[in-house]
């Protein structure tokens, strides 16, 4: 039985610009928005778009991600035929290879794709926060009679040189591709989300694999090769919320945008496009007398006795009396003890911030660094974490890091 379209989700990225946050887990497994992980977005988009077969290509630190995906049940992807499959590199009779590039990762799983005999394959990225209807994208692809389509976002011209850009004509047909050009001819940035006709993709993957000089990358190799051959290539305009959360600052910013759904467009409350996640199973959160909670998102199992403003608290966070939390992203199981001041920062899972410690600071002037504390750390009493610091090790009482 053939599937019309299956999804291949690239989730092997190390996310090195998230530093300590991705030391122990792959970027798609990074927690987001109070109860989600980044990968919940593409997975939920798939299910909401009617895609029931997803291959997840993992490579870097897959343990947390594998456990999180499990059998795919939270996303309704535990299916008899199809469903979610985690696809790490594996050993073959002729030797084994790590995934050398994005295209090689798909190449190594051609046999997985062929089991479903799909007409189309959508390539997704596991490190973006985006609510997107892929069925609308597919409709566009079919209407254009395309062999390859790429989702693009209009970006401000001055930022265009940071992106891979698609130059397209008035019919959205792609005529040129510029990777981070000095002189952009277009402001249509590739979102790294592609739909291919499977026969075309397979042909180009095989050709690319045969080329010893190739980097085996979609942007650098496959797309230029398609252009070279004048394939039917189209750019699909996407106008919704999209954010590459590749840096500490952009991850923090995206979390803060969740608190301002009206202006940012990342509405997690939308019942018609639910984002699913694996539940932690804790009782409701508790806000004590004397606590202040304003403009914040709070998850199950939290205990709040201090002051929380404009922050995101993940499951099981404890805020003790007289602690102050502002503009902060506090991940699951972390405790902020009495008198600690935690501002404009990301604190990863299961951290203890001891009495009267200071983490981060509100921006002043040009300075708007996001202080970051890695998971499972202990920040001692009166310790100070400066606004640009990225803490990777325990800090003793009174210690300072800037």
């Amino acid at each position, binding site marked *: 039985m053939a599937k019309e379209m299956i999804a291949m989700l690239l989730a092997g990225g190390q996310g090195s610009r998230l530093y300590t946050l991705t030391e122990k887990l792959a970027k798609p497994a990074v927690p987001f928005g109070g109860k989600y992980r980044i990968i919940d977005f593409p997975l939920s988009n798939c299910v909401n778009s009617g895609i029931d077969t997803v291959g997840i290509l993992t490579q870097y630190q897959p343990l947390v991600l594998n456990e999180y995906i499990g059998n795919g049940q939270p996303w309704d992807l535990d299916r008899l035929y199809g469903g979610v499959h985690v696809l790490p590199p594996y050993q073959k009779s002729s030797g084994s290879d790590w995934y050398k590039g994005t295209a090689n990762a798909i190449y190594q799983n051609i046999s997985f794709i062929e089991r479903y005999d799909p007409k189309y394959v959508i390539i997704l990225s596991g490190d973006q926060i985006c609510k997107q209807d892929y069925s609308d994208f597919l409709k566009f692809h079919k209407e254009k009679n395309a062999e390859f389509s790429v989702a693009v976002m209009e970006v401000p011209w001055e930022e265009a040189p940071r992106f891979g850009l698609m130059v397209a004509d008035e019919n959205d047909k792609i005529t040129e591709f510029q990777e981070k050009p000095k002189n952009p001819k277009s402001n249509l940035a590739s979102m790294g989300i592609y739909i291919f006709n499977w026969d075309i993709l397979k042909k180009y993957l095989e050709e690319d694999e045969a080329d010893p000089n190739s980097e085996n990358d979609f942007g650098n190799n496959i797309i230029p090769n398609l252009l070279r051959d004048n394939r039917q290539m189209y750019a699909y305009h996407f106008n919704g919320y999209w954010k590459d959360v590749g840096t500490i600052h952009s991850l923090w910013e995206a979390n803060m945008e969740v*608190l301002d759904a009206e202006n940012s467009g990342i509405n*997690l409350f939308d019942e018609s496009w639910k984002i699913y996640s694996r539940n932690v199973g804790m*009782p409701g959160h508790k806000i004590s007398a004397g*606590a202040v909670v304003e403009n914040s998102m709070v998850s199950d199992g939290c205990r709040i006795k201090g002051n929380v403003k404009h922050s995101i608290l993940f499951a099981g966070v404890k805020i003790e009396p007289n602690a102050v939390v502002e503009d902060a992203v506090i991940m699951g199981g972390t405790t902020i003890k009495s008198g600690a001041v935690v501002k404009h920062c990301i604190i990863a899972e299961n951290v203890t911030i001891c009495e009267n410690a200071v983490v981060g600071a509100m921006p002043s002037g040009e300075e708007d660094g996001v202080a970051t504390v890695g998971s499972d750390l202990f920040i001692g009493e009166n310790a100070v974490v400066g606004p640009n610091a990225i803490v990777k090790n325990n800090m003793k009482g009174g210690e300072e890091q800037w």
Partner: protein
Amino acid sequence: MVKSNTSALGIIFPNSYDAMVPDLVNVRLMASIPFASRYRIIDFILSSMTHSGIGNISVVVNKNYHSLMDHLGSGREWDLVRKNGGLHIFPPFAAKEARPYIGRASALANILDFMRDEKEKYIIMSDTNIVVNFDFNDMLQKHIASGADMSIAYVQRPVPNGLIKAENNGRCFYYTFDVEEDKIKKIYINSKEDGVQNFSMNIFVVNRELLVDLVNNAMLLGQEFFMRDVLIPQINKLDIRGYKYEGYTAFITDMKSYFDENMKLLDDYNLDALFSGSPVYTKIRGDHPTQYVDTAKVQNVMVASGCIIEGQVENSIIFRGVKIAKGATVKNCILMQDTVVEAGANIEYLITDKDVTISAGKEMKGTDTFPVYISKKQTV
């Protein structure tokens, strides 16, 4: 092959004591009454059984059980989708002589064949009017070590008020024990004794083959109530032990106790006592985290996920998906799933069932001793 990790299977009676809370069970049964901001009462017993290694659990439903079936689904959330064992729901067998059960003995008679065919050596039985994080394994091990025929859990406390007041309706029995050196010497029905009693939790561990015999006899004699009709007459013949339980318990015996037992969880001491044991599982709705906007003012509340809080909330238990609009004031309330409190409404001592709407500007107040209950889907 034994179907669970322990040598016991579980049987749950979700309709027991329904008559004590007629309003709350109008559209459901005792087991599916919402409790503690995101749970149904059965979640506590069911999760406790799962954590005690019991993987073969039967729920013997009687009436009003649609909400429970919806809640339990396949049993996945409690890890009860098992190849062997897992979750069974036993509705009444609709033969022409069938009638709803009144007591535990007649309910068990309905599943006699099932009990006969299972392989586990012991059966653990429980009602669902108790909120408890119970270690069934500990009770089972003590029972096995004692070599007794049966063990029944009890707590030392005064009889709950709701039961004392309701005893005349003739349907709801409660039991207190004389216990000597762990042996239950005498069982009293609906005792009016003041003060601390050995109050039965109606949690039993019993040897399966013995239970099959007892229920078979009871069926032949037309007996309804296991404790009243089967155990009391044979109290000297059977070796029945008492298992004193000292953990946190909440008995739901009337609307007042339902209100009070919810509110008690606003005290961290009680909350920790109930939840510090093994985790309590429930049906997952997939709500977003709860959002508090800048006009929100909250003090001493327990709130589940999926809520949007814009108004003022104090001393309240808020279930999933509740919306409290700007300028609304909520004090000492229990708001069940998806309750909407519109702008400027002012409510106090209210229990709103699922999908209730309190219209803009409305004022409504119950009292400490008599919280007002608003039934499912009503708009005030």
